C-alpha cells in the first residue's frame, strides 16, 4: 500500500513538473529575467591565458557600462573547457542552452572548440559570438556565429607585403599545424609568391609541441632573409627564446609574423630579444588612441598589472556587440533578431574603428604594421603603418 502511495505521489509530481516546464517554455522571456551570456573559455591548460584575458575584458566592460541593458540585468556565466577538448566545449554549450537558458553563447578560445559548438548554436537558434578562435571559415559553420576577434588571412597579408617592400627575398615559414596555422601559411605564401618572393621552406610544428629548437635550427640552416612565424597565443615566449639562443638574429635572419608571436600578454617576459620583430596585427596595447589608453589603464588596474592582449579586445568588443544588439532589437528579441541586429554594427573599439560585415558576419577592422621597441624600459608593439578597414579576404 505504502509503495503504491509513494509511486502515485511521484506521478503527480512528475505531471506537475511537466506542466511547469511547458509553461516555462511557452512563456516568452520576461524583461525582468536576467539576460544570460554563456562564456565558454579555456581557463586552465596551455591556452589559459586566452581565457583569462577575455574573462577579464568582459567583466571590465560590464563594470564600465553597467550590468543592465534595455532594462534587463546581464548575467555572465563563465565555464572552463580546458582548451583542448572540443567535445567538452560542445557539452558545456548544450548545458548552457538547455539548463541555463542563455541568450547568447560567447568566448571560444581555439578553432576546433568553436567548430564543436557551432551545431549547438544553429539548433538552439542562439547567437554565438566568437571572440578568439581565428580560422577564417568559422562563421560559415552556423548562421548564428558572429566574430569580434580577427581572422588569420585578414592580418597575414600586410606583413607579406611589408616583407616584399623591405628587401626580404627568401623566407622560411613556420606555423603551428592546425586551422589558423594553415590559414596563416597559405595567405603568407600566396601573397609573398605573387609579389615575386621565394618561399624556401614551409615548416609545420605540432600543436602540442614542447621543443621548437630543432625546427628553428632547420630554418637557420636554410639561410633565409626572414622567418615568418605563426604560433597560438602563449607559445611565442618559447619560440622567441630559442630564436635568440640559436643565434638566428646574428645569422642575419629577421623574425616576422602575425602579432600572436609578440603577444602583449607575454611581451614583457620576452624582454630584449623581442626588440626589432616586425608583425602585422589588429591590436596592440600601445595603439595610440584615447579609447585604447583608457582601456589599457582600466584593464591593467583591475587585473594586477596584466597587460591586455588581442584576445582581450575580442572579448571586450564581443560584450559591446551583445549590448548594442540587445538595445537595437529590444529586450525580448529572439536569437535570429539579435544576430540581425549585430550585422552591420559599427563602433570605435580600443583597437580602432571596426564593424561587423553584414554579409559574412566577420569583423572588419584596421590592420597595423608594428615593430617591437623599448618604451620606458619595456617592450611594446609600436604601430608604424595602417591598412584601413581590412575585410577577411576569403
Amino acid at each position: 500500500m505504502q509503495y503504491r502511495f509513494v509511486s502515485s505521489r511521484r506521478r503527480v509530481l512528475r505531471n506537475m513538473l511537466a506542466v511547469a516546464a511547458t509553461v516555462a517554455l511557452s512563456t516568452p522571456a520576461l524583461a525582468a529575467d536576467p539576460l544570460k551570456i554563456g562564456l565558454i573559455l579555456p581557463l586552465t591548460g596551455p591556452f589559459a591565458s586566452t581565457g583569462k584575458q577575455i574573462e577579464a575584458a568582459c567583466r571590465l566592460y560590464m563594470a564600465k557600462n553597467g550590468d543592465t541593458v534595455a532594462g534587463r540585468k546581464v548575467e555572465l556565466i563563465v565555464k572552463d573547457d580546458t582548451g583542448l577538448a572540443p567535445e567538452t566545449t560542445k557539452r558545456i554549450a548544450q548545458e548552457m542552452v538547455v539548463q541555463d537558458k542563455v541568450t547568447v553563447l560567447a568566448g571560444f578560445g581555439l578553432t576546433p572548440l568553436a567548430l564543436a559548438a557551432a551545431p549547438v548554436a544553429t539548433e538552439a537558434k542562439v547567437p554565438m559570438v566568437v571572440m578568439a578562435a581565428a580560422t577564417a571559415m568559422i562563421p560559415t559553420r552556423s548562421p548564428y556565429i558572429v566574430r569580434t576577434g580577427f581572422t588569420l588571412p585578414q592580418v597575414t597579408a600586410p606583413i607579406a607585403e611589408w616583407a616584399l617592400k623591405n628587401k626580404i627575398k627568401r623566407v622560411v615559414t613556420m606555423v603551428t599545424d592546425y586551422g589558423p596555422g594553415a590559414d596563416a601559411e597559405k595567405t603568407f605564401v600566396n601573397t609573398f609568391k605573387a609579389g615575386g618572393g621565394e618561399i624556401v621552406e614551409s615548416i609545420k610544428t605540432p600543436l602540442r609541441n614542447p621543443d621548437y629548437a630543432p625546427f628553428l635550427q632547420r630554418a637557420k640552416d636554410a639561410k633565409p632573409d626572414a622567418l615568418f612565424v605563426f604560433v597560438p597565443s602563449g607559445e611565442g615566449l618559447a619560440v622567441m627564446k630559442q630564436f635568440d639562443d640559436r643565434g638566428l638574429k646574428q645569422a642575419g635572419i629577421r623574425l616576422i609574423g602575425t602579432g600572436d608571436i609578440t603577444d602583449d600578454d607575454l611581451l614583457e617576459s620576452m624582454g630584449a630579444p623581442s626588440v626589432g620583430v616586425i608583425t602585422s596585427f589588429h591590436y596592440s596595447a600601445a595603439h595610440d588612441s584615447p579609447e585604447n589608453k583608457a582601456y589599457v589603464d582600466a584593464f591593467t588596474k583591475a587585473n594586477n598589472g596584466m597587460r591586455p592582449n588581442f584576445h582581450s579586445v575580442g572579448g571586450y568588443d564581443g560584450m559591446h556587440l551583445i549590448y548594442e544588439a540587445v538595445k537595437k532589437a529590444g529586450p525580448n528579441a529572439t536569437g535570429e533578431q539579435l544576430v540581425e541586429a549585430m550585422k552591420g554594427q559599427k563602433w570605435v573599439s580600443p583597437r580602432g574603428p571596426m564593424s561587423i560585415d553584414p554579409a559574412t558576419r566577420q569583423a572588419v577592422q584596421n590592420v597595423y604594421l608594428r615593430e617591437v621597441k623599448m618604451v620606458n624600459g619595456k617592450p611594446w608593439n609600436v604601430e608604424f603603418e595602417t591598412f584601413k578597414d581590412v575585410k577577411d579576404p576569403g
Partner: protein
Amino acid sequence: MIGNLIGVLFDGVAYGSLLFVISIGLSVTMGLMNFVNLAHGAFAMLGGYACVMLMTRAGVPFLATLPVAFLVPAVAGIVLERTLYQRLYKATHLDQVMFSIGLVFMSVATATYFFGPSQQPVRLPDFLRGQVRVLGLDVGAYRLFLIAVVIVITTVLTLLLVKTRFGAQVRASVDNAVAAAGLGIDVNRVFGVTFALGSGLAGLGGGLGIDVLGLDPTFPLKYMVYFLLVVAIGGAGTIKGGLVAAMILGICDVAGKYYVPQIGSFIIYFLMVALMIVFPAGLYGRRA
C-alpha cells in the same frame, strides 16, 4: 651536412640528458618498489617552480636555486612516500595508476591556483646564454652546461650505487626485497630514501629544464609519456638502461624534427614500438 649532423647529435644528447635526470628517479623507484608512479613529473614541476619562485620573487641567481630545486621535491617526496605511497606498494598496478594520476591532476590544479596558467620565464646567467664555439661548431652554451651536469650526476650516482654501503643495500633490495629484509636491511628506509633521491633528481631536472622544456602547470601531463618511455625502453631499475634510452629518445626526437619535420614528433613513438617488440623488458631490463 656533417656540421648539421654533429649539431643535431649535440642537441639530441643535451635533450636526452635532461630526460635522463628527470626520469632516472622513476626508473629506480619502479625497479625497486615495482610502483607505477605516474606523478613523477609533478615532482619535476615542483622543482621547476621552486627554481622560478626563488629567482623571480627573491632574486636568487639561477645556479644557486638548483640545490633548492633538488631539496624541495626530495622533502615532498619523502613526506608523500611515508604518508601515501607506502600504503600502495602491495596494491594492484591499477590502484597505483589511479592514485598517482590523481596526484598529477591535483598538482596541475594546485600549480594553476598558485602560479597561474602561463609559461614561467627563466633568466639564465649571461655565460649560459647564446652560443659558444667549440671545435669550430656553434653550440648552445646552456645545452653544453646540461650535458656537463648530467656527466657529473651520472658519475656520482654510479659511485653511490656501486661503492657505498647504501648503494649495496639498494641493489640488494632491488634484486630481492624479501631476502634483503631477511638479512637485516631496513628495506622500508631504503625505499624512502631512494624515493626522495629520485624525486629530488626529478626536481633538479625540472629546474634545469625550464629553458628547454618550459614550465607551466600542465608539465607533468605533457611530458609523462617521455618519462615513461625512458623507463620502458631502458628497463626499470637500471641507471645504464635509463641513460641509453634517454639518449636514444633525445637524439631521435631532435633528428626527426630536424630532418623530417613533417612526421618529426611521431618518430619516437614508432621507435618505442620497434624497441619494445625487440626488447620487451627494455634494453637492460631483467624482468620479462
